């Protein structure tokens, strides 16, 4: 793991009207780190990772991702470049329903990276094999199970060969039986040198693969520590309360 920072934020704030979702977040994420973001609902963890590729514009503070300062002045081409380097996996999969699985994965490499169709489909096919569903390549997303859809969504994000992967509760919309197949893919991914930020409620996953846990509550970054420390003797009272309630 290199010691180079890939994501740095300083006093990031986000408000929705009167409600302040993020109240000054400072993080420093190194390249190749795997960060697990925990916290109760409404604590701002999803909002936080959405600010990192500007799906959610922030009101104050600074965000620097991969050397690019993200704010209103970021040029469109910089933002596009940045977004193509950040994979994002959604809770609701958000696959494109009108094209096949293979086309879903191969679309962005063609349109953004300028790959040829054959090249892009070759990449897509490799990724489908990696997530374990090469036989589903010509089906439409509606014909797949939730777990399979989420694996396709991960493959779609990986097709852009991103430096950073953001996961926004990737298993929360799945049946319990399907959670494992998605987590397996993510664990496999964690072994490679890729920066991952995972918002999740899967404590087992957090313990197993997380390099660092970030615990959010009410828009604050309450605690930041290694999984061992966080789960065995958390520093903050709020973290203790949270762990008592879920374990």
């Amino acid at each position, binding site marked *: 793991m290199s010691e180079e920072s890939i994501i740095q934020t300083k006093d990031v704030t986000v408000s929705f009207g009167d409600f302040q979702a993020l109240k000054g977040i400072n993080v420093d994420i190194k390249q190749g780190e795997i960060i697990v973001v925990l916290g109760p609902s409404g604590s701002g963890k999803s909002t936080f990772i959405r600010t990192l*590729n500007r*799906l959610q514009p922030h009101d104050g503070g600074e965000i620097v991702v991969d050397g690019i300062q993200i704010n209103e002045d970021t040029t469109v081409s910089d933002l*596009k*470049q940045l*977004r*193509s380097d*950040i*994979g*994002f996996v*959604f809770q*609701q999969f*958000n*696959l*494109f*329903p*009108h*094209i*096949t699985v*293979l*086309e879903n994965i191969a*679309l*962005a490499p063609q*349109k*953004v990276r300028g790959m040829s169709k054959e090249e892009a489909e070759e990449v897509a096919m490799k990724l489908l094999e990696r997530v374990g569903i090469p036989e589903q390549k*010509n*089906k*439409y997303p*509606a014909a797949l199970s939730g777990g399979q859809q989420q694996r396709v*969504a991960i493959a*779609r*994000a990986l097709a*852009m060969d991103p430096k950073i992967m953001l996961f926004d509760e990737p298993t929360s919309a799945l049946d319990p039986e399907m959670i494992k197949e998605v987590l397996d893919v993510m664990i496999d991914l964690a072994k490679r040198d890729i920066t991952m930020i995972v918002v999740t409620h899967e404590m087992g996953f957090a313990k197993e693969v997380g390099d660092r846990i970030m615990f959010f509550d009410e828009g604050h970054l309450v605690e930041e520590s290694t999984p061992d420390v966080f789960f065995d003797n958390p520093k903050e009272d709020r973290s203790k309360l949270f762990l008592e309630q879920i374990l």
Partner: protein
Amino acid sequence: MSFNFFLLIFILFVLLPDLLNRYHITVRAVQVSCPNIREILNLLYGKLPRYTYSAELAFIISLLLTYFAVKSELSFASYLPLVTFGYIAHLNSKELFDTPSNSFITILSFFILYSFFVKALEFVFIESNWDVVFKNRRFIFLGPYFINPYTGDEIWRFWPPFYVFLVIFCAGYGTLSESKVKFLLPYSIFCLALIFLIGYDSDYYSYKNGMKISNRNYEATESLFLLAGALILGLISYLLMHQRCKILEEFQVNYIQQVLILSSFLSFIGMLFLLDPPGDEGVKPSYWGGFVLNLIFAFGSLVIGFGIGIALAFGRRSSLPVFYVPSVAIIELFRSGPLVAWLFFAQFLVPDLFNPVWEADIASRIIFVFALFFGCYLAEILRGGLQTVPHGQFEAATALGLSPTQIKLRIQLPQAIRTTLPAIVGQMIAMLKDTSLVYFFGVYDAFKATKDIPSQRDFLAEYEEPLVFVAFLFWAVAYYLSRLTTKIEKNLGLDNEGGAGRT
């Protein structure tokens, strides 16, 4: 007359006592003499075998019997539909006669349907002289200028497009995974109708001199060979495509369908070039005519209107006033005026406004107005469709780094079209019917032809038949379009998501 009389007796002596019986109202005389309606039906039909029959079959049988009754003018014949009706009622007696009000509705609706069919059949088979339509068939379909004996026969210009379109359509049907019967049955009806229309030697009438022209310059055999070739080619393309699509995967079939749609657009443009090639050859657009002209106008406006509609829909959703304001202005301006007003605008004002720049003939001006009008309605339909595309789709595409234009065209638009397909086809049908308005502007569409036919020497004042025939043509195309959409929706799997299903 006899039927009405019979119905009166039926109501007075069968239905009424039956109702009274049910409500235990003692009217001694009728109660004793009249049995229950079910008993009567049972008595009459009880020994007949109870075939399973479909509603369509029963309908056709009743129609045939009604036709026979009308045609034969025999008094007993008019009882035959009634007898059939009684038999069907007997089979269905659980639903048709279970309560007094249902009995009443059954009888009433039968009476209404029967009177309507009698009148309709009388008109179609007895009062009308379809000769006027039949002898003017090329006039109605193609207008006067393609068959003018003095300028030469330009009808051949329709054959190549006919071949291409037929092959494309049949191939398109092949891609729909349906049983062969569902295609072959309508197709054979279509073939027979065409063979009848084209192959039958007949005099026809020149609109200019109002005189009869013998069939000397009409080679039925040649046309028949051409037609047979086209029909067989269509059948082959259907069978090949059907065979092929069975083994292909869904996405490959969708790809083929997209190619077919594109090629139909291209061959439409090719057809326009063939009809009016650059230079003095061919027939100028203002001289096109007949029902084909309606179709060309509709298709042309459809193609152009789609582009306009998509641009306006996205323009209206844009947050930039540069796009937003003109889009809203155009949509509101064109939707608020009647189409006729805009057509007059195209005829009288547009030449003055654009004359130095664009000297378009009336046909292209009219197509442009239709396209703009269609585009405005389409824009509003598509805007509705775009609003139903989940925001997550936009976010996912943005997160992948796609540009706003790519997101609009590749992600949002296809999904919006999928969900609004029924409304779009509704608008297309409306536009097809609106093309009959060009009749006001000296363009020789099918309705203009029907207006001129009654002035021919042999068919003076025969107004009704051509009008009915042209109305039927419009109905047939509109109905076909709506059936086709249902098929496409099924094919897209939309009916599982709450789409068309049965209509």
